[in-house]
């Protein structure tokens, strides 16, 4: 979900200028319909992960945009909205469809598949906006477009925030 990324152009440009085009081709952004579809996902490996040098602890802080799972994030971090990086805030609903990315965990050096499931049913959280635009394609490529509100798949299309659900190890 990335309705809001234009507010944060400096961040966008900063990130994008450090993103090579080839790196996108190693990233997968695919339509995910339920966790059962995971084994069928084309998985690519991202070797240009986020800059983890500033994060603390073995895996870092999920409330920071630099957190490793946020490598494909484009929305408000649910951690800052009453939920966590893996759960929606109270009273919202997790959208079953989203696009996924592959992020490298700096704690073990492995690549993992991360689904950016939106939480829906309340208006925008407006806290901890995080936009990392790598791999975004125009809207005629919905499965690779982060300008689309993925709450479309839930019972209520009102976007609130975004989680980072770890689906499993990325396989070469």
């Amino acid at each position: 979900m990335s309705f809001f990324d234009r507010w944060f152009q400096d961040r966008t440009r900063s990130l994008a200028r450090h993103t090579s085009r080839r790196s996108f081709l190693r990233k997968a952004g695919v339509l995910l319909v339920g966790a059962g579809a995971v084994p069928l996902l084309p998985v690519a490996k991202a070797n240009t992960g986020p800059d983890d040098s500033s994060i603390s602890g073995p895996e870092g802080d999920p409330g920071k945009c630099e957190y490793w799972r946020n490598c494909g994030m484009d929305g408000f971090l649910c951690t800052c909205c009453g939920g966590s990086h893996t759960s929606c805030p109270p009273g919202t609903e997790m959208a079953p469809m989203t696009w996924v990315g592959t992020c490298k965990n700096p704690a073990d050096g492995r690549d993992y598949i991360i689904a950016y499931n939106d939480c829906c049913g309340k208006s925008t959280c407006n806290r901890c906006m995080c936009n990392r635009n790598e791999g975004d394609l125009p809207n005629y490529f919905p499965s690779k477009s982060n300008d689309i509100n993925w709450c479309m798949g839930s019972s209520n299309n009102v976007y609130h925030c975004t989680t980072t659900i770890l689906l499993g190890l990325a396989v070469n």
Partner: protein
Amino acid sequence: MDNISVSWSKMRFYSLLLLFLAGCDAQQPADEPGSTATSSSGNNTYVDVSKEPLSKDIFGKVTAIPETLHPHWVWIYDIAAASMPDGRAYLYDGDTARVLGMLNTGYSFNALNLPGHYREVYSAETYYARTTRGERTDVVSIYDPFKLTPVAEIEIPAKRVSTLPRLADSALTDDDRFMAVFNLTPAASLSIVDLEQRRFAGEVMTPGCAMAYGAGDRRFFALCSDGSLLLIDLTEEGTQAAAQRSEPFFNALEDPILETGVRSGDTWYFMSVLGKIHPVEFSADGPVFSDTWWYLDGKDREDNWRIGGMQPLTLHESTQRLYLLMHQGDFYTYEAPGPEIWVYDLATRERVDKIRTRHSSISIAVSQDDNPLLYTITEDLSTLDIYDASSGEYLRSAGELGITPFLIDPVPLP
């Protein structure tokens, strides 16, 4: 309970009495002619008796917009991302940089559709019965563009797409009879609305393709993820008559085209991220893909100049001047704002000017009259800057533009 009722009655009585007395006082001349007045505090105050006292204002007036369409009026579309159920469209006068009025346009608003006749304007909208919950209703609202009031609405399937705003999320046929609204559930389709008969005409499936572009009186097309386009021909009833998938004409992974296109006659022009122009002419038989040409030369590409923004191109049709919003950045910065606007002559394919704008901009548009204005929305979304489109000279600005206004839409020529 009785005491409370009595108290309220007394309060209302004294309130009305005070208003009455104040009104009587206002009707009294300040003093006899030729004298000075003495205020209640005892200070002497000079009264200019040579002038008549001001007359009372009339209560309840509402400003009317003159029903003479001016080519420098321009709509600004605001998704109001901080509170998305509250989308709005502002109408500005580009000659004065003043707001003429606004419309409320519901949740996840994209853009109005402005017909050439401009007797009314159309808006695909989404509403929830309790603002963010309850039953969802999607409609095409029809507004009087001068009174800025709703005059009708047509219910459509509740699956209109919700995206960062794009002008191409809905479109009109060339005769303004039908409107197409892009749906994504994630199954892709178009809701077709008969604007003349005020009815939902039906749904056209567009598998693998998205958005809607007008290309004739009974024709829309959508862009597809494999680099092709899907041409939809309609019957007179607005149902699907034919669907034709073209050959791929761009590579969506290697060099995607931007969603924003410009149109001159029967030809649409799309800009690729790496710097090519893709002309697509729509003949009676279908699309004809002319040769592409580079709008960036080798040096430009070497220096990483790139088109970018939310609405990064606009065409002044009568002069064939094409305006591109440019910045320096890598491949995935094609939605980033830019500090320069490069002007091309579509006929000669030459770049004829570079305009260095006052602020980096996220969207641009040009009016279509003979003294065209060039509008830009600044990258912080706060300001509409207005330039002379012919000379590039800065003219004026409108601040406090909206909440998160992304799109610019000049009204059609009268």
